[in-house]
Structures are given as C-alpha cells and as structure tokens.
C-alpha cells in the first residue's frame, strides 16, 4: 500500500463551483500535512499546511484533516480558472523519524501523493 494516495482525476468543474480534493494516508507517524499546487510545466509551490485534526482556512481554501480515518481534504470555494492545476498532498516525515541529522534537524523528506489534476472552466 502506498503511503499517500490521491485520486488522480482529472476533475473538471465550472467556475464558481466548490471543489473537494482528497488524500488518504497509511503512516500514523505523519503529524501534519502540506498541500502543494503545481501549474502545468512548473515546479510545485506550497499552498498551505495544517496540523493534526480539524480545519484550517486561508482565503478560498480550507484544509481538513481527519486523523482517525487518515483522510485529508482540500476544499476550494468559488473556484476560478486560475485554480486549474495539479494539487498534491504531502505529509513531511516525522521530526522524530530516524535517522536524523546531527543537531536535531530532520531530513525533511516529503511523501507526495500522485496529485489530482483540476480544471476550472469559465
């Protein structure tokens, strides 16, 4: 079983729709979660991150984590054509994972999901 799984889509919605993007994960050691957005032919960029269970809101975006079911969601309200991109969920390795760098820092590895391709059409 992959550590992080996403429905690859593609997902096509009309402008203004509410979009729900989802990830499931299997490693209970993941402590918080990142969402990256990747436009076509570009490198990914961090969209938002959220700790533990509950919701985190940032403008039109809401990240939700349900640790009991190992389920992560990203909601986009009032979706815009500029939201058309691939969305990747990525939990960082636990800071208590071994091996660790000397001095207590971590290797900071991310485990990316496959990504969901989203198209918002006008």
């Amino acid at each position, binding site marked *: 079983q992959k550590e992080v799984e996403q429905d690859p889509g593609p997902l096509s919605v009309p402008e203004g729709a509410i979009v729900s993007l989802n990830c499931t994960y299997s490693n209970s050691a993941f402590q918080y979660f990142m969402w990256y957005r990747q436009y076509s032919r570009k490198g990914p960029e961090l969209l938002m*991150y959220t700790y533990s269970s509950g919701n985190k809101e940032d403008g039109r975006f809401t990240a939700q984590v349900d640790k009991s079911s190992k389920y992560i969601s990203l909601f986009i309200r009032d979706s815009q054509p500029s939201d058309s991109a691939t969305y990747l969920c990525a939990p960082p390795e636990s800071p208590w994972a071994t091996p660790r760098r000397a001095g207590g820092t971590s*290797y*900071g590895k991310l485990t990316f999901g496959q990504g969901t391709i989203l198209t918002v059409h006008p």
Partner: protein
Amino acid sequence: SQTIHQWPATLVQPVGSPLSLECTVEGTSNPNLYWYRQAAGRGLQLLFYSVGIGQISSEVPQNLSASRPQDRQFILSSKKLLLSDSGFYLCAWKSPRLAGGSTDTQYFGPGTRLTVL
C-alpha cells in the same frame, strides 16, 4: 530572498548518451537539497537528497547518480540514459532547521524536461 535555478530547461537526448543537470540555490546556507522526477501523469518521486557537501542519499535504485560539490550546488548525472529516464526533473531546497511547520516547506526550481529518444 532565496532563489533556485535549474538548467537546462529542456533537453532531448539519445539513448545511451550521458546526462548532467544542474541546480543552484542562492540566498541560503547549508540547505537540504532534493532531486525529484515526475513522469507524465504521475506524482513526484524522490530520487536523491543531500544534507551537506558530499553527502548524498539515494531513495531508489536507478541509472542516475547525484553529487553536491558545493554547498548550494546539486548535480544529477547519468553515464548512459535509458528511455525510462524521460520525465520532468525537479530540484528543491529546504531549510536545515528543526522540522515542523514552515521549516519543512520545500521550494522547487522551475524543472528540466528531459526526453530520451
């Protein structure tokens, strides 16, 4: 501010030819550095990471190698390319500080699109 550069942006190479992709980071010291590959329609696969000069960890067995000759320079190489090496190669950096929250953010370069024919 920090910036990350990759070159070349696009590369078409014949099977069996060598490869050298370069990544440099500006505006930070002692970063963690990462090489990823993204095949068409697939997620990001971590290939190598480095926590310091000359320190390279490989995540998957493959036809590729990586080197870090300087603090902010990361190079991805191959002696003989295979068709399966085609893909979008991304370099990323992260602050070496303690993990948690924004310090785990990886910042990606613009990528190199490699086609092996």
